[in-house]
């Protein structure tokens, strides 16, 4: 069953088309990373999923409920952490949690769930403090606590690591991973490492369109531009140009040069076996041969940065 289903969604703000004919779905139990530069349409897409904005066209469904036709049932099934964790500054964290418990009609479960999220999100120290007095990191965790309070089957998290220190980032990623064992998670982030470490699948958006969608490792592999290998020989090879005679090689350069050289061999076709065969023919012994995989960051930049335009950050 698809927990999130988006079909031909469009959203325009005046003459600006923020999301253009986007379709995708997320199955139960998936942790999906939503990536894209600023202005790619990620937040617009998320706001349509939570019913904060109405799409200009298409259909958006959450947990089997059409967001336009059954907005309350759709919202009851999801927990949402908005970007920058907006919370009521004049209320205490506990007051906000109690309000959310009432909104979700937790009734007798309210106290138990509030205590659970206070412990899970590490809020014990500040739970009775006004939101205006707590640090950015605690506010982020308090907002996450409101999102998971009612134990929703779907979590939509917009930049959950913003404002957290490295230890807190590790903690929150662990928490997202553990939540992802039972829940469907859509995680919008600028942190590519977060997607690589947490998400099963990545959806990359650019200029209102989905430009890549698939399992994280597969997207990286499929979009890696050329095959490249790190090669180290037992014998000393002085001239890197010698390696240009390997069939299929388009470029060779030396990446590190101390006692021996490590060559980066980029190939248009062929592979490791070709390099081995060439080495044997030339009386060389291959000591190390490692395929160099493209990183998600390289894939992200190749999909979202226009070569003719200034690069987008994030």
């Amino acid at each position, binding site marked *: 069953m698809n927990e999130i289903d988006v079909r031909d969604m469009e959203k325009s703000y005046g003459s600006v088309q923020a999301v253009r004919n986007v379709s995708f779905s997320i199955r139960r139990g998936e942790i999906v990373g939503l990536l894209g530069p600023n202005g790619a349409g990620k937040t617009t897409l998320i706001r349509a999923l*939570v019913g904060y904005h109405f799409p200009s066209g298409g259909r958006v469904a959450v947990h089997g409920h059409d967001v336009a036709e059954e907005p309350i049932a759709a919202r009851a099934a999801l927990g949402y952490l908005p970007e920058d964790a907006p919370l009521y500054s004049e209320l205490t964290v506990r007051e906000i949690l109690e309000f959310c*418990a009432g909104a979700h009609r937790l009734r007798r479960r309210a106290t138990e769930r509030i205590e659970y999220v206070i412990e899970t999100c590490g809020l014990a120290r500040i739970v009775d403090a006004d939101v205006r007095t707590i640090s950015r990191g605690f506010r982020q965790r308090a907002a996450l606590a409101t999102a998971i309070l009612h134990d929703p089957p779907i979590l939509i998290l917009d930049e959950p690591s913003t404002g957290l220190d490295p230890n807190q980032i590790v903690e929150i990623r662990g928490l997202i991973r553990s939540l992802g064992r039972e829940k469907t998670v859509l995680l919008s982030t600028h942190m590519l490492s977060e997607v690589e470490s947490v998400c099963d699948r990545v959806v990359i958006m650019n200029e209102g369109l989905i430009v890549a969608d698939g399992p994280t490792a597969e997207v990286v592999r499929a979009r890696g531009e050329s095959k490249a290998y790190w090669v180290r020989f037992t014998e000393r090879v002085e001239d890197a140009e010698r390696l240009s005679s390997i069939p299929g090689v388009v470029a060779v350069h030396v990446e590190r040069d101390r006692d021996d050289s490590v060559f980066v061999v980029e190939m248009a076709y062929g592979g490791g076996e070709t390099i081995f065969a060439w080495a044997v023919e030339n009386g060389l012994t291959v000591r190390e041969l490692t395929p160099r995989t493209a990183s998600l960051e390289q894939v992200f930049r190749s999909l979202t940065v226009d070569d003719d335009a200034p690069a987008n950050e994030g």
Partner: protein
Amino acid sequence: MKLTSLVGKELRQYFNTPTAYVAIVFFLAATSGWLFYVDGFFARGVATLRPYFALMPVMFVFFVPAVTMRTWAEERRTRTDEFLMALPYSTGEIVCAKAIASFCVLALALLLTAPVPFFVTMLGRFDPGPIVTEYLGTMLFGAAATAVGCLASSITRNQVTAFLVAAAALGFLLVLDTIVVFVGLDGVFARVVSYVSWSARFESFVKGIIDSRDVVFFVAVTAAMLRLTVHSVEAGKSR
């Protein structure tokens, strides 16, 4: 329980900050100051509180916008509306809860005026009937004014703008029939204005008359303004 939580949240926001306290103190000081110093209640020597209640709509022009200005504008400015709208509430429920909480602040202010009639009735032979109708009229007028204030707040993210728009709208509605008399309009337009005149409708309550048409008028205006607020908030989602 859902709606109670939302009204409770709104009330906590009012009373966790000085806004509501300042507005209520200002309201009580201004209305009492008017009765005892400006209007000269003791010097007049007449056992009636009609001038006291007649002033209420004028006070509401400032007091109600001061209470309602934050309802939607502050949510938008701080982006907490995004958090609120993702909870399982309909727009109508949120609009009603905010209006109910604002009205509770107004009702508390009116409750705190109770010592005035309570003590002055000890000074002479007051007819309690008009005091009851005056309170009823003030509450109904206040409910309609609160709905106008919430509507004004829903169209902006700036509290000052929300205050000014609501105060201007309430001031205009209050003096509408006076303007018609001043300009010398008559005919259909004058009749329509007298029909929708808030001050004329309120005047009946001050005189001790409960006319069901006046009650229905203020209830209908309140409902219409809340409906318009729902439209205004929903329109914001489509922009």
